């Protein structure tokens, strides 16, 4: 990991640092009532002031979709690290195959450095809780209306990218259940409910996959 090509952490181009207080207040106003936080420390306010809502949303979505391929996000939220150790950690994950572009990695790094720094409070909301709070505005295709028709040929690649890590190559199962010829494929209500909102250890994918993409994956799974 020491031989990384070029560091992913240059934040020179980031706008996060230049975020205005107002955006911090907007996010704080959004978060506080939902979380029932009565007291917010000055440090937290400052943290949030360095992350614009749109970028927090992007970071949360990336963490949820890309980091959680190998480990649940609770592992991230429990860390309290200085910036240099976060930098090394994100570089290590990139080196190990985390599916993040350099720009995406920079967004993630900026977020975790601001939120999970050495002085952050012991208990912070989970990535999923934060995502749920901002998801209504973040759904990739919020204008979903009625059923969509899945295309199996598109679903193969989407499956490989998003599902295979847990459900195995060819949907044959792995850490998660085998999906090939699984009865849930015939129960579309249960299938959509599980994919959109998660179930047990499986995270919710509603903020990551569009309805069309979910339908494509379903269509491909039906061919297995």
């Amino acid at each position, binding site marked *: *990991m020491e031989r990384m090509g070029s560091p992913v952490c240059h934040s020179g181009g980031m706008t996060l640092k230049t975020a205005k207080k107002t955006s911090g207040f907007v996010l704080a106003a959004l978060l506080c009532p939902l979380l029932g936080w009565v007291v917010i420390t000055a440090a937290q306010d400052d943290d949030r002031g360095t992350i614009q809502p749109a970028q927090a949303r992007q970071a949360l979505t990336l963490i949820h979709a890309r980091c959680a*391929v*190998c*480990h*649940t996000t*609770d*592992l991230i939220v*429990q*860390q*309290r*690290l*200085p910036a240099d*150790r976060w930098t090394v*950690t994100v570089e290590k994950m990139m080196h*190990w*195959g985390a599916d993040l572009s350099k720009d995406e990695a920079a967004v993630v790094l900026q977020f975790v450095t601001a939120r999970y720094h*050495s002085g952050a409070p012991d208990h912070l909301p*989970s990535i*999923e*809780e934060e995502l*749920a709070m901002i998801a209504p505005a973040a759904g990739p295709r919020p204008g979903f209306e009625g059923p969509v028709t899945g295309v199996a040929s598109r679903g193969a690649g989407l499956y490989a990218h998003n599902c295979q*890590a*847990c459900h195995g190559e060819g949907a044959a*199962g*792995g*850490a*998660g*259940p*085998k999906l090939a010829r*699984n*009865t*849930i494929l015939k*129960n579309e209500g*249960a*299938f959509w409910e*599980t994919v959109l909102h*998660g*179930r*047990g*250890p499986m*995270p*919710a994918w509603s903020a990551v996959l569009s309805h069309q993409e979910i339908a494509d994956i379903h269509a491909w799974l039906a061919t297995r």
Partner: protein
Amino acid sequence: MTVSRREWLRTALQGIGVGMVVGPGFPSIVTAQGNEARQGTGPLTVRVSRPFDAETPVREFASWLTPNERFFVRSHFGPPPADSVKPDAWRLTVKGLVKEELTLNLKDLQQLEAVTLTAVLQCSGNGRAHHRPKVPGVQWERGAVGNAQWTGVRLRDVLQRAGVKPQGAHVQFQGADRPALATVPLFTRSIPLAKALHSDTLLAYEMNGRPLPLLHGAPLRVITPGWMAESCTKWLTEITVRADETPGYYMQQAYRIPETAVRLSSGLPGSAMVPVEQMPVKSLIAAPAEGDTVRIGPVTVQGVAWAGEAPVVKVEVSCDDGKTWEQARLLGEGQPYAWRQWQFVWSARTPGPTAILCRAIDAQGEQQPATSPWNPGGFLWNGWDRLSVTVAA
């Protein structure tokens, strides 16, 4: 889906008390698991949901043996598919610098002499959350440790059947677990030949008298008594005798500590990094519990103490936050590698808040320090255990 997920959960969580500490995002793992797994099991404190990493609440350490269902769980990638480690599908190969390569099934192994011993198994990162500055990794507190009875065969007997060539100096272990992405290095470890040939180093197929649960390495795992758990490879499928220490991340970068203590906050250590091996002397308080209120009068303080390859000879307890110390009574008889239970009857006289501390000393004179030396991996925490209680009038 309902059926298959339940089956999967049942398999994945086999041997686990599923009173999980879960956030609102994961409410259904308990319901999906149903009542059956929760019956007769205590909760584990889940640190990471996947791969499943969970620690034992310290109150469980009032028992000498830690039940399989309540034993801490740690792996880098989670268990392999259950089918791949079923006894009829599973094979162990012994290769590398040996005179004769072996492929063994479980019955072959069980032809060798069976050995049972009781040993502490502890994650090197146990107590990582107490290190300051904080270090990355699973933020284990006190319970990534347990004491179990292991039954298996001597690794030495297996190596003797294969015949170690004179150049062989390290023994490498590979389990069947695999990362989600092929770009992540495998968890491959090695131990020096001397430890491998030690008569107490086992390939264990039973834990507390029952076949190894999937989460604990079914059907076969390494047990290196006195050494930290990263040497105790689970789901063992390959043993390779080598001339050198195993290359790769999990042997050459992870699980290493500075040979000499580093200065706090000094960044990267200035000394050579050596593999984590022996457990340092350590003790824990199992009761009372953190935050308890106790009554004026006699209060039984109890816990456990252990060390690597040396026995614990003394445990001291302070009930006034470290001002004065008294000797606890060691219970039962010492067994190599097992932990020792201890007890101290405290005469609580002064109402108000106080802290109870404990510290142990081993036969080599090593003392449990107030705080452990900082190291970049956050390994080997063995600072005095401490909990806050209130004495009620």
